[in-house]
């Protein structure tokens, strides 16, 4: 827990710098095309944002190691700096100064390009995310759609990395990665659609402001689907098959070392941070104003991040065919039916509360939808408990009654 707090503290440290520059400035979204070229502030902001992201990435590697270590009854890295906080930076320095090794038979250009292909989309994703209220690189009206579109490019990099390495382990990682990333795209996007339905907008800020009741209560099913889809997109446990270390060593980045590995490794955490931010915005209610809003957002993000770390510290991995079965046989139909039901519910509350078309749903309508959805969610859990063939979940631990007399 102290690590969670520590994570928060570190994030707070950066905030004043951001605020200093943007406290009395108008938000960037008001720049016109000419302003962008004239406004040097934009570039400073961009620089700060990217430094902030890289800083968070490095810290997250440390935070995860500490947290999971504590779950494992260990201490975790505690040598570099106070409590070991500089561990991530030490790793980074070590990795950057390592030799740039490219396998002889690898496709050199693609091999070098792949880490860039993996990292760029994830960095690009932050262009629309309102980390600080009013501060976005581009407050696009299609915000969430942009996020989905940009991040799906990541699978390209994964496949490029795996294929260019010319190693069998990498090949397996790449192929698995593509199948998995591609499969989880569909339920993820469908579930985002339900959120869009409720808020009536694709803009991230507008979605956040539409949440009179946090959408995690309104849409628990969508939340779970998005949570696990994102875990799959991020290659995190229980869906980390494309870098399954006990099976295919390191998956698509088996051959990578040095800076390129650092990029791939860091991107995992950067993407985790980005997606956690998105989930926090989509599901955890309003964005507050000013520094308080920033802290609240970071706290919400930390919860999601902690969930990912927690899963990793507890659960094993799911097999490839099971992963695809979960995506297609459970999540996809659930998400589709969820859309139909949600749309029906919206029509229902619009008619009983006489809401004009185009107006946002108020508190009471959302409350009714919440109640219905929670009941449905409970029912779903019960139904799933009875379904066989999802890997025979009905067979629990049993006590064997040993038969001592009879042999064989």
């Amino acid at each position, binding site marked *: 827990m102290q690590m969670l707090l520590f994570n928060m503290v570190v994030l707070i440290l950066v905030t004043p710098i951001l605020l200093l520059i943007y406290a009395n400035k108008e938000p960037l979204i008001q720049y016109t095309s000419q302003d962008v070229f004239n406004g040097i502030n934009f570039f400073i902001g961009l620089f700060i944002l990217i430094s902030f992201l890289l800083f968070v990435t490095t810290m997250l590697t440390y935070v995860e190691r500490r947290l999971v270590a504590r779950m494992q009854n260990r201490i975790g890295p505690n040598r570099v700096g106070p409590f070991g906080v500089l561990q991530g930076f030490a790793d980074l320095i070590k990795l950057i100064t390592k030799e*740039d090794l490219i396998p002889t038979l690898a496709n050199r250009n693609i091999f070098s390009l792949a880490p860039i292909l993996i990292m760029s989309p994830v960095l690009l994703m932050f262009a629309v995310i309102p980390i600080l209220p009013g501060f976005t690189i581009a407050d696009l009206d299609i915000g969430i759609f942009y996020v989905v579109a940009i991040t799906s490019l990541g699978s390209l990099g994964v496949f490029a990395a795996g294929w260019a390495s010319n190693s069998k382990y990498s090949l397996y990682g790449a192929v698995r990665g*593509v199948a998995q990333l591609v499969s989880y795209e569909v339920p993820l996007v469908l579930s985002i659609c339900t959120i869009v339905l409720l808020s009536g907008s694709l803009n991230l800020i507008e979605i956040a402001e539409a949440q009179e009741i946090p959408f995690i209560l309104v849409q628990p099913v969508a939340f779970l689907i998005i949570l696990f889809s994102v875990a799959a997109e991020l290659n995190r446990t229980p869906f980390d098959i494309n870098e399954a270390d006990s099976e295919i060593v390191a998956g698509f980045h088996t051959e990578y070392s040095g800076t390129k590995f650092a990029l791939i490794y860091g991107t995992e955490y950067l993407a985790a941070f980005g997606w956690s931010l998105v989930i926090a915005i989509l599901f955890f209610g309003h964005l507050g104003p000013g520094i308080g809003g920033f802290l609240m957002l970071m706290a919400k993000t930390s919860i999601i991040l902690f969930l990912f770390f927690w899963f990793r510290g507890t659960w094993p991995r799911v097999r490839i065919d099971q992963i695809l079965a979960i995506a297609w046989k459970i999540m996809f139909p659930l998400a589709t039916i969820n859309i139909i039901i949600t749309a029906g519910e919206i029509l229902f509350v619009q008619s009983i509360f006489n809401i004009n078309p185009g107006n946002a749903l108020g508190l009471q309508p959302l409350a009714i939808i919440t109640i219905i959805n929670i009941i449905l969610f409970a029912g779903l859990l019960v139904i799933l408990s009875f379904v066989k063939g999802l890997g025979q979940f009905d067979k629990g631990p049993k006590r064997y009654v040993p038969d001592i007399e009879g042999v064989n």
Partner: protein
Amino acid sequence: MAETAKYWGVLFMALAAFLVPTSLIFLSHIFSKIRIRPKPDSEKNVSRGAPYESGMTPVGTARVKFNFRFYLFALLFLIFDVEVLFIFPWAARFLHLGFEAYVAMLPFLMLVLIGFLYEWKKEALEWK
């Protein structure tokens, strides 16, 4: 405020997002040229540049005609992702559109689901 102006921000972000990893790789490339110690003998070793295969010399190439069962899943993704694309604008405007839009979308979603069930029945979703 022009909507297009915002995309300039995205463009610069894209440039930055491309430059950050590129410069890091370039930087390490420069570092790798600086040699403090002479080239060790191990660097002339052939197996140094060989792909990893648990310490064994790899048999054959990794560029094989892979049994790509995932191909089916990729195709499925194509089909359904395009359909999802149709849902997005509808969902964004749904609060404005009301009952007629629901009635219009329902058959479409049903078609998607029926198609999905058909594929399930045809065992396109099974591993074998």
